[in-house]
């Protein structure tokens, strides 16, 4: 689960990380009032869960009430990478001497957290990695020791901070680490971490991604979820326990298992088709969940053919078939459907589908299923 900038900064601040004074606003009026209370100049920033806000015009400086009103109005009417901007953060503008980067990520290969710092802040870390990799400094953190002052000091020295900033940098690094571990993040970044003209360190922007698997420990965060981030279909899928991602194509796929679902998409593409979605019904799905999944696919106006690819293991083909039939009885499908069911209880599954009387194109292998789905999407007659 991704958090907005204002949410991330709020969490960081609760662990002692200094952030600019700021207020959230949903309308140009609110933004102006906030700016008036904070004092000019202010920075007005779109709160959307995608990168590239700056280039899209989502971050603007305002020196006067008139500028603030204009900026807020402009930003609140933007769509950035297809997401509408519904809120802006109004921050006191800082006088910046230099911009640093500080981040904490999971290092899969070493199975540890890694804190990264760079003197080249203000651009994305991937960009720094590309143009100046030697400017990124890292320390691995043993989970039993956590972040120690000497780790922070090592990073501070590496990015060229002077002795006068050591204590403040240590405190910020510790705050970031504690926020990360307390809230079970998978990513936490302060970028830029500004050195102001008055010599203070200030987290001007914040980013945090939480580990969905750990949200059970933090039920209070459920209300922080931005449902605008998801399409209604993705939301319904999440609540039903399905993994669903909408894509641009016209072949709706329903698959058990993430790897097989991706492979199914790949095979469709390989044979010239375009998947309309990624959809993993998970392990051991019952008929009800399968029915929800199929309803989602059939509700997508772009879908011109549906492909079921089920390899039974924990998942039983008869359960899946029952779910398919249940959904079909509800929503009369107008598109062709290709079904490939193998593995646990495949015989029973095929019989249930056959007995339902609905016409399904069958396939023995994934390749065959994909070819038939691609052909059907092109309007060619199938199986």
């Amino acid at each position, binding site marked *: 689960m991704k958090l907005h900038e204002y949410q991330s900064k709020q969490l960081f601040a609760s662990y002692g990380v200094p952030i600019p004074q700021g207020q959230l606003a949903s309308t140009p009026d609110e933004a102006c009032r906030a700016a008036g209370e904070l004092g000019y100049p202010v920075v007005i920033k779109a709160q959307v869960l*995608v990168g590239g806000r700056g280039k899209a015009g989502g971050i603007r400086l305002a020196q006067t009430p008139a500028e603030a009103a204009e900026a807020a109005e402009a930003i609140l009417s933007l769509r950035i990478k297809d997401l509408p901007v519904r809120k802006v953060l109004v921050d006191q503008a800082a006088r910046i001497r230099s911009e640093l980067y500080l981040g904490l990520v*999971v290092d*899969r*290969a070493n*199975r*540890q*957290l890694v804190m990264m710092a760079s003197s080249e802040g203000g651009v*994305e*870390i*991937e960009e720094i990695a590309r143009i100046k990799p030697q400017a990124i400094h890292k320390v691995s953190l*043993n*989970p*039993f020791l956590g972040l120690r002052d000497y780790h922070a000091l090592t990073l501070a020295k590496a990015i060229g901070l002077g002795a006068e900033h050591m204590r403040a940098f240590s405190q910020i690094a510790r705050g970031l680490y504690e926020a990360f*571990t307390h809230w*079970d993040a*998978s990513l936490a970044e302060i970028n830029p971490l500004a050195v102001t003209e008055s010599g203070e360190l200030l987290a001007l922007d914040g980013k945090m991604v939480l*580990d*969905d*698997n*750990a949200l*059970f*420990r933090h039920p209070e965060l459920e209300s922080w979820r931005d449902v605008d981030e998801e399409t209604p279909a993705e939301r319904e899928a999440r609540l039903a326990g399905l*993994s669903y*991602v909408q*894509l641009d194509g016209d072949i709706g796929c329903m*698959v*058990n*298992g*993430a*790897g*097989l*679902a*991706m*492979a199914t*998409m*790949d*095979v*469709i*593409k*390989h044979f010239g088709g375009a*998947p309309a979605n*990624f959809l*993993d019904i998970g*392990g*051991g799905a019952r008929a009800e969940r399968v029915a929800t999944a199929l309803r989602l696919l059939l509700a997508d106006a772009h879908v011109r053919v549906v492909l079921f690819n089920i*390899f*039974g*293991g*924990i*998942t039983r083909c008869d359960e899946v078939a029952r779910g398919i039939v249940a959904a079909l009885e509800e929503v009369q499908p107008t598109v062709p459907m290709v079904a490939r069911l*193998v*593995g*646990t209880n495949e015989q029973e599954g095929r019989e249930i589908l056959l007995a339902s009387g609905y016409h399904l194109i069958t396939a023995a*292998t*994934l*390749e065959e299923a*994909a070819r038939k789905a691609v052909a059907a999407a092109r309007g060619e007659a199938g199986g």
Partner: protein
Amino acid sequence: MAILVDKTTRLLVQGITGREGEFHARQMLEYGTQVVAGVTPGKGGQWACDGRVPVFDTVLEAVQQTEANTSVIYVPARFAPDAILEAADAGIPLIVCVTEGIPTLDMIRVCAYLAQTGTRLIGPNCPGLLTPGEAKVGIMPGHIATPGPVGVVSRSGTLTYEIVYALTACGIGQTTCVGIGGDPIVGTNFVDVLELFEHDPCTEHVVLIGEIGGNDEELAARFIATQMTKPVTAFIAGRTAPPGKRMGHAGAIIEGGSGTAAEKIAALEAAGVQVAAHPEQIPQLVTRAS
């Protein structure tokens, strides 16, 4: 011969009285695996699977009384880290954790502890291990595999079945099929398993099934290039996956432009690995290389 599990495996099932645990314990018994004990705290003294498997309250008791040497875990995510630690503390050298949804920070702590004890963990969020004709530990359907010379290692679940099924259908058997799991933090990675296959005299060819996210395939490519003598064939799922969108489990995501299928395929091909364009192409590539 095979790797990790075989006829000598004496299996303990943690969470044996749960729905999944009992179901798969039966499947494993039917496959011929020696399931010698189950553990569910508070249910010690009962018998599971129609009286075939004794249940203990703690792993330690189970080990002391049955000499279990491998454990498979089916307990819910919030109890699974403790289950792994308990098995390690009881001296079990090989633990397979099927459970999905364990928080990443929990797994970081668990793995740091296991590094001290020298315990090998497969998973979590993995389908487990299958040595055809000898032992099945986890949730892989047994009937899709058949004994033979190909070692299979995979981050995926059902995609593995797809490929094993395709191999079997073409008459190509397997030494052992290893599902290492799709989470960001897993106890055993590709390189560990490749090393085992490289040293297993019965394995003549290795099939590696990767996917987007992380850089485990790149590390595998480096290992293959420098340390392996046996041919490797691979498939990478997620060529068509868009960046920034999580594809199902927590591991499968292209973050910050890295972890793409294209990068992984390039790394593997540079290491001399044949990479299949689609899963059912694998048997053909294996046959050609043998």
